[in-house]
C-alpha cells in the first residue's frame, strides 16, 4: 500500500535512471534529510549529538568505505581502522604545518593521503584473493599503527604519541557546540554517501561488481583488473580517511595510534556484515546496530532489572549486554545472512506487490 506505484510513469530516460526511481523513496529520503538537518538539531540533547549521532555518522562513513572495497569490489580488508588513523593524523599534520589551511581542505587532503596509503597496501590484491588478502591487509593495520608510534614527527613530538586536534574553524566561525559538529559531520556524510550511491551504479561501480563476481570473467570482457582494484582501494581508503579525520576532530578531540586497533577494524567489518555487504544503506544500518544496540541495552537493562527486582551490578549489566548483543548478531545472521539491508529490501518488495502478491 505504502509502495503502490500506480500512476508513476517514467517518460524520459532521466526519470528512469534517477537515483531513487520510486516516488515514495524520494519523499522518504528528502523527509529524512529534512529531519536530520532541521528536526534533530531542534530536539536532540547534547548527549545525543556527542555520544550517539556523531559517532554513528562517522562509523557509517567508515563502513561505507569498507563496503565499497569489500561489498562492491569483493576485496576483503582488515585495515579500515588503520586508514582512519592515517586520515586522522594526516588532517592533524596538515592543520599544524600549513598555515591557515581551511579545515575542509585538510579533511580532503587527509582522505587523499589515506587513499595513497590504501593504494600501496592494495597492491597485494593483484596477486592474492579472499582470506589471504585479508591477512595481507592486516599488515596495513599493524604497520600503520607502528609507524605512527615510531616516528614522533607524525604526532608533533608529543611525548606520548597522543595528538590533540586543533580548533574547527569554518569560514572564520569556530565550531564548538555538538550541534555544529553534528551538522558538519552530517553534511560531509550526506555528500559522500550520495557520491558513493552514484559511483556504484556508474561504469566504475559496475566494473567493481564484475571483478567481485568473477575477476577472470571481468578481465575477459575487457575490465582492466589492476586499475579497477586499486581504484576500489583508493576510494575506500579515502572514505575511511575522511571518517578518521572526523573521528579525531569532531568526535574525540584527541586520539592515539593504539586507539585505531584491530578491534576497531573488526567492528567496521561487522557493521557491513550485519548491515549488508554491497549496500550503501547497509552501512548505515550496520553502524546503527553495532554502535547503538549496546548503548540501548546498557541503558534499558538496569530498568528491566529494577522491574523484576534483580540485583544487577554494572559489571553484570555489561556481561549481559555482551551476551545479548552476540545472540542478536547470530539471530540476524541466521534469519538473514545478507544483512539488515536485505531484510529491508525484502520488505520493500513485498510492500510494492501488496495486497496482490503473485
Amino acid at each position, binding site marked *: 500500500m505504502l509502495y503502490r506505484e500506480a500512476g508513476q510513469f517514467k517518460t524520459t530516460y532521466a526519470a528512469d535512471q534517477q537515483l531513487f526511481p520510486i516516488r515514495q523513496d524520494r519523499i*522518504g529520503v528528502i523527509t*529524512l534529510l529534512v*529531519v*536530520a538537518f532541521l528536526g534533530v538539531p531542534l530536539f536532540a*540533547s*547534547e*548527549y545525543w549529538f*556527542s*555520544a*550517539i549521532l556523531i*559517532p554513528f555518522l562517522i562509523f557509517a562513513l567508515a563502513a561505507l568505505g569498507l563496503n565499497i572495497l569489500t561489498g562492491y569490489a569483493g576485496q576483503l580488508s582488515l585495515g579500515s581502522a588503520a586508514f582512519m588513523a592515517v586520515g586522522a593524523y594526516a588532517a592533524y599534520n596538515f592543520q*599544524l604545518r600549513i598555515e591557515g589551511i581551511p579545515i575542509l581542505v585538510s579533511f580532503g587532503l587527509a582522505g587523499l593521503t589515506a587513499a595513497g596509503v590504501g593504494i600501496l597496501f592494495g597492491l597485494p590484491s593483484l596477486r592474492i584473493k579472499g582470506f589471504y588478502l585479508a591477512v595481507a591487509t592486516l599488515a596495513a593495520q599493524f604497520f600503520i599503527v*607502528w609507524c605512527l*608510534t615510531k616516528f614522533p614527527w607524525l604526532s608533533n613530538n608529543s*611525548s*606520548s*604519541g*597522543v595528538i*590533540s586536534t*586543533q*580548533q574547527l574553524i569554518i569560514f572564520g566561525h569556530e565550531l*564548538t557546540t555538538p550541534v555544529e559538529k553534528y551538522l558538519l559531520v552530517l553534511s560531509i556524510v550526506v555528500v559522500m554517501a550520495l557520491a558513493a550511491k552514484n559511483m556504484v551504479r556508474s561504469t566504475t561501480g559496475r566494473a567493481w561488481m564484475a571483478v567481485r563476481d568473477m575477476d577472470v570473467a571481468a578481465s575477459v570482457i575487457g575490465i582492466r583488473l589492476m586499475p579497477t582494484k586499486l581504484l576500489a582501494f583508493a576510494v575506500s581508503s579515502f572514505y575511511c580517511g575522511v571518517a578518521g579525520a572526523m573521528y579525531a576532530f569532531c*568526535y*574525540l*578531540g*584527541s586520539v*592515539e595510534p*593504539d*586507539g585505531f586497533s584491530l578491534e576497531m577494524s573488526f567492528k567496521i567489518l561487522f557493521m557491513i556484515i550485519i548491515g549488508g555487504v554491497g549496500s*550503501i*544503506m547497509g552501512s*548505515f*544500518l550496520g553502524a*546503527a546496530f553495532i554502535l*547503538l*544496540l549496546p*548503548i*540501548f541495552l*546498557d*541503558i*534499558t537493562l538496569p*530498568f528491566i532489572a529494577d522491574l523484576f527486582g534483580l540485583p544487577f*551490578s*554494572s*559489571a553484570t*549489566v*555489561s*556481561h549481559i549486554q*555482551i551476551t545479548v548483543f552476540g545472540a542478536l548478531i547470530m539471530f540476524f545472521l541466521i534469519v538473514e545472512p545478507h544483512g*539488515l539491508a536485505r531484510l*529491508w529490501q525484502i520488505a520493500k518488495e513485498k510492500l510494492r506487490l501488496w495486497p496482490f502478491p503473485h
Partner: protein
Amino acid sequence: MIKSFKPALSAVALSLAMLSQGAAAAEEQFFPLIDYRVGPYGSNGQAFYGGFIDYLNYVNLKEKGVNGVQMTYEECETEYNNAKGVECYERLKSKAAKSAGPLHTMSTGISYALIDKSAQDKLPLAMMGYGRTDAVDGSVFPYAFPLVTTYQMQASAIVKFLKDKNGGSLAGKKIVYLYHDSAYGKEAIVALNAEASLNKFEMVQIPVAHPGNEQGAQWLKIRQEKPDFVIFWGWGVMNQTALKAAQKVGFPRDKMIGSWWTGSEEDVVPAGDAAKGYMAATWNVAGKQVPVIADIEKVVYGAGKGNLQDPSKIGTILYNRGVSAAVLSVEAIRKGQEKYGKGKALNGEQTRWALENLNITDARLKALGATDLLPEIKTSCDNHEGSGKVKIQQWDGAKWVPVSGWIEGNKGLIHPLFQASAKQYAKEKGITPRDCSKEK
C-alpha cells in the same frame, strides 16, 4: 536508511527520560564514576573502584556524609574503551550538572578524550597517576588535575632513589629503560633523558611491543648491555613476563625498579619466585595495617554494604589506591564546603576550586587513618600535581614492603618541561592561560 533507526531512537529516548526521573534529591554529593569492571583490565578496575566506592559508603556510614551531605554515585562501564568512555561521560554529564565530585577514569586514553569536554562542561577531571601530565600547569588546564604525581616526576624520583642507593652519584652508570611501547611507556622518556644529562648516566631505551608476553630479544639485549639498573615501565601481562625473563637471563631483580602500574599483587604473584626482590614505585602502601582500610572492612563490610564481590582484594595495592583516590576526592568536597557553605553539595565548578586549593597535611592524613595511603598534598593554580612524591616498595615473595620514605622527583627539572608542553597546547588550541597570581 533511517527506517529501522527511528524506533531504536525513540526507545532510547524513552529510557533516557526514565533515567532522568531518578535524579538526585537535594544535598547529595554526586560522583559520576566512569569505570570498568570487565574487559582486559577489568580486575584492576574492580579493585580500584571497589576501594573508591567502599570509602564513599564508609563516609556515609561512619560520619553520615560530609557535614550531612551524603555521597552518591552512578557507575558507567567503559571496558577501558575510549569511545565508550566518552559515551559514559555524556550520559552522566547531565546528572552531574547540579553536584559533581571529581571524575576518575583510570584510563589515559579516556582522560585525554575528556580534557577539552570536561573543561567546557566545567567538570573537574582527576587523573591520579595517569593521563595528561602537562596538566600540572593549571593555568592552561583549569579543569584537569594529574593529582599526587605524574610519570615524569615518578621517573625522576626513581632516579633519585637509585642515586641515593648508589652513594649519591650515578655518573658513568648505565640504566636500561624497558618500556611498553605506547603512549604510557613513552611519557617518561623525556624526563629520563633530562635526568641522564644532568646526572651523567647512560640511558638505553628498549621498547616492548604490546602486549609484551614475549621479551626474549629484549632481555638478550639487556644481558649484552650489562646495565647497572633497569627502570621498567610495563603494563598488564608484560610485567610478569619481564620478571620471569629477568630470572632466566640472571639479571638481579633487586636492580629492577618499576613504575606504579607494575607494582601490584596482580603483577608479581603470577611470576612466582622470579618476583622476589623486585622493586616498584607507588604512592600508596598495600595492606590492611592502614587504619582506615581496616575500619572500612569493619564498618562497610560489617554492614553488608561492601562493593567487592571478592573481599580478599581488600588491602591490595589497587584497592588501597582506590581508597586513596576517594580520600582525596572527599577531602576536596570538605574543603569546598568550607568555602561554599557547609552541608551543601558542590557543583563541578566548586569542586574544581577545592581541588586547586587542597592542603592535606600528614596530620590530617593521620586523623583520617590514612597515613601512607597518600603523601602530603598541596595544590595550587600552577601546580595541579600537589605532591610529586612516591615511595619505593619491594616484593618479599609474599607482600609489598616499603623500602623508602617519600621521595620527591626533581621539580626544578621536570616542571619546566610540563610548562613548555602546556604552552604549546595552549597555542595549538587557542587557549589564553589564566594568570595564576590572580587566583586565590
